[in-house]
């Protein structure tokens, strides 16, 4: 043992009570599992609303039913639905829409979810609207943000989508404040 570098031993692994030795999920609220067909069903309903011109209803429906418990494909499909809605809303309508959502009951939580989708949208490579997701390469981490590497494949088409997300981000921070960003970074329920 004389040669062992004791400074690099991870003593936490040797302690049965240590946080390294228990599952973090036992501390967190449980999430109901969501299957891919359910998300597909939801996204077609939302598209219907969108075609009917009810952008606010579509956005609310999409954000209030975020598939926290879904797998990567389900989450990706929902991201696509949300970004489609975001792109269909005019810049001048953003602030009034966000204020309306914020002041309604449960509004702050809904906007937190929107912020999650904005960050996820910025981290993921954009794809052409309409092509059902699932085949796209995913960001390697489930955190949903901070993945600057994931944007490499974006290409020239990404600039447009990114500017939409950025202007949404600006308007959203005006309404929901910095607290919204902190909550997205803290929350373990990822979209």
């Amino acid at each position, binding site marked *: 043992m004389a040669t062992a570098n004791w400074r690099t031993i991870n003593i936490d692994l040797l302690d049965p009570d240590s946080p390294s030795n228990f599952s973090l999920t036992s501390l967190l609220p449980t999430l109901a599992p969501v299957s891919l067909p359910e998300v597909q069903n939801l996204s077609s309903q939302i598209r219907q609303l969108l075609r009917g011109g009810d952008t606010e209803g579509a956005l609310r429906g999409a954000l209030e039913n975020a598939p926290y418990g879904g797998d990567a494909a389900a989450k990706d499909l929902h991201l696509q639905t949300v970004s489609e809605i975001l792109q269909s809303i005019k810049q001048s309508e953003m602030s009034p829409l966000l204020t309306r959502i914020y002041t309604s009951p449960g509004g702050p939580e809904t906007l937190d979810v929107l912020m999650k989708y904005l960050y996820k949208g910025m981290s993921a490579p954009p794809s052409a609207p309409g092509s059902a997701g699932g085949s796209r390469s995913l960001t390697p981490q489930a955190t949903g943000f901070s993945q600057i590497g994931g944007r490499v494949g974006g290409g020239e088409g990404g600039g447009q989508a990114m500017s939409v997300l950025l202007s949404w981000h600006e308007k959203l921070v005006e309404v929901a404040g910095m607290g919204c960003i902190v909550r997205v970074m*803290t929350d373990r329920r990822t979209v």
Partner: protein
Amino acid sequence: MASPEVHHLFHHPIADHSFSADRKALAVARDNNVELYTRSGSKFTLQDELKGHDKTVTSVDIAPTTGRIVTCSQDRNAYVWEPSPTGWKPTLVLLRINRAATFVRWSPSEAKFAVGSGARVIAVCYFESENDWWVSKHLKKPIRSTITALAWHPNSVLLAAGSTDAHARVFSSFIKGVDERPEGSVWGERLPFGTVCGEYLNNEAGWVHGVAFSPSGNALAFTAHDSSVTVVYPSGPDEPPRAVVSLSLQVLPFLSLIWNGESEIIAAGYDCEAYRLQGNEQGWQIVGSMESKGRPGLGEMREESALNMFRQMDLKGKSKDDTQLKTVHQNTIATIRAYDVAGGNVKKFSSSGVDGRVVIWST
């Protein structure tokens, strides 16, 4: 609203501060030492230093009636300091923890104190007269991470703890021979040591920064890193709480909070200013900042002569000095404490933070 009394003690973070009962002495945790200031006129002057810890002191508390000071530090020790003719005499407390001590508070009875730590335990310490030292009992289960904040119930038995595992918990710290049997309350009837009377978690699961019992002890508020304040109204032992009101805020997270009566909370944190929140079981909302806008001094600073403006532009490339925050505190507020309490209502409270200021506010 009278303007706040600002004491800029030094250019160094203040981890914690505590006033003596007569408000003439102030203990401030600075690096490895605790500095004792006494009031002379309108200022506080350095009187004494409590040296003994060899790592950063994380928390300090002065017992109001006995005048004892308890300190705890990242060196895993806590000391109880008592005045003696030759100066302050420290007594080591046997905490039996293997990680940093993070937070310490005297119980209202002053017979014991609780130390939170990174070792996933709370050490409840009391004096054992036959051995002539302070010993501790550990509250262990079900804490899964570092304790960041503690608060005592007025009955000195119940203890609220906030932790980085995102839970706020209420424990019984009843110690036979030290405590009187408490009367039954909404938190429980029989309370042997270690009873978990409540365990609360936010949806966003942010780690908890601060906890506080309401003056009656029948409600618990905690603030977490998801920029929220949650108020829990328990209904009785082994029953779900009557109401849990969670408020998501637009501002940056709060680090510390105190109650002002049963329907008002004052909280402060990363936003460098204190806010007032009001509400009841039906709901809570943020009312506004405690800062009085348009303070004297703020306007004077902005008033600049043309000569000065051009000089600034020449020297710094800009005409306005925007390195100053508009708030009294120039950095995160780490601790707020009640300063002057009358009948459960806070008349004045004090705040300290990373900018080395201690500020006394009137509500």
